[in-house]
């Protein structure tokens, strides 16, 4: 009954009214065509029949509402909704690729730097915490203005330690360290270069709670030229566990 021209007209008109969603578009076209055919069977002109049917749909607003409700009822699942959000996001990123790049790159760099700063700070406040008295141990820092120069140094004069202990009641003990590069350490015949050799005071073990495997921490460093070594160094020089009474020069 309906000619192809009529159908084309309906398709075009519905399209113009915003019925474009895949799935519902064909269906509404067919529905309206069928309804129009029924109307025309009773002798109504095509255009009058079409407008009557449109009215029963509620014109453009009603058609669009039907389309909207249909799409919504299909997409009621959360998974579909999230998938849709994702698709829309990707399309938007593609559409504005330059700004997306700036945004994403900027955010990435910002976050990366932020993370580096956090890691740095965490590292800075984390070390040397293993000593039992960590909260009561302080390091002397020297700030010297001398001859037009401004020095910021982690060095102090040797007498500082004794002065602090004797003249400042709040200071319980003071330990000095001195590092002078690497040393050659000799066991019997061979010389081994060691980088981490540090001179210190005899009360070292009172202030720094370094666990001691063997020996008495009270007296270990009491005599001049005595030495405290780590387990790794002990194994290096005395692999056979015969450590006592041996000499290192």
């Amino acid at each position, binding site marked *: 009954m309906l000619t192809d021209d009529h159908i084309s007209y309906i398709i075009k008109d519905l399209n113009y009214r915003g019925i474009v969603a895949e799935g519902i578009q064909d269906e509404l076209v067919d529905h309206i065509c069928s309804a129009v055919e029924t109307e025309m069977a009773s002798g109504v002109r095509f255009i009058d029949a079409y407008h009557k049917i449109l009215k*029963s749909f509620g014109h453009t607003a009603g058609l669009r509402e039907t389309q909207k409700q249909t799409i919504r009822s299909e997409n009621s699942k959360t998974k579909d909704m999230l998938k849709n959000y994702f698709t829309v996001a990707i399309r938007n990123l593609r559409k504005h690729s330059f700004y997306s790049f700036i945004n994403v790159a900027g955010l990435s760099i910002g976050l990366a730097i932020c993370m580096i700063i956090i890691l740095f700070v965490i590292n800075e406040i984390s070390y040397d915490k293993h000593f039992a008295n960590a909260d009561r141990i302080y390091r002397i820092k020297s700030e010297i203005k001398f001859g037009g120069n401004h020095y910021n140094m982690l060095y102090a004069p040797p007498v500082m330690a004794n002065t602090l202990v004797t003249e400042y009641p709040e200071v319980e003990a003071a330990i000095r360290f001195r590092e002078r590069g690497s040393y050659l350490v000799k066991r019997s015949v061979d010389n081994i270069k060691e980088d981490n050799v540090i001179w210190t005071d005899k009360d070292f073990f009172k202030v720094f709670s370094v666990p001691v495997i063997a020996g008495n921490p009270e007296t270990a460093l009491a005599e001049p030229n005595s030495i405290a070594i780590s387990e790794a160094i002990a194994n290096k020089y005395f692999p056979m566990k015969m450590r006592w009474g041996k000499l290192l020069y």
Partner: protein
Amino acid sequence: MHSPELLKGTLQTILLKLLKDHGKMYGYEITQRVKELSDGRILLTEGALYPSLHKLEAEGLLKTETVMMGKRVRKYYTLTPVGKSLVKERVSEFVDFIRTMGNVLQVELN
């Protein structure tokens, strides 16, 4: 004509039962069939019909097949096995509901 408010909750039941009785149907055919069965007292609006059909399809109770008819495409709905198994339950549930409503409203149902 019955108010669309009353129809809202029963639409799915109507669609499932119709499709069980008739096999495959398309949208317009459904509205006409409902109109015929109800002596014109239930007019399904397209605004309610298509969202319901698509919802049932998305839930896996209906499946569709499309047939080309010249320039137009006709979409037929049929019940899936899952949909078929639900029809009896839905209908008896609704009959039960009518009976309960009869009791609540204190009216005699024949």
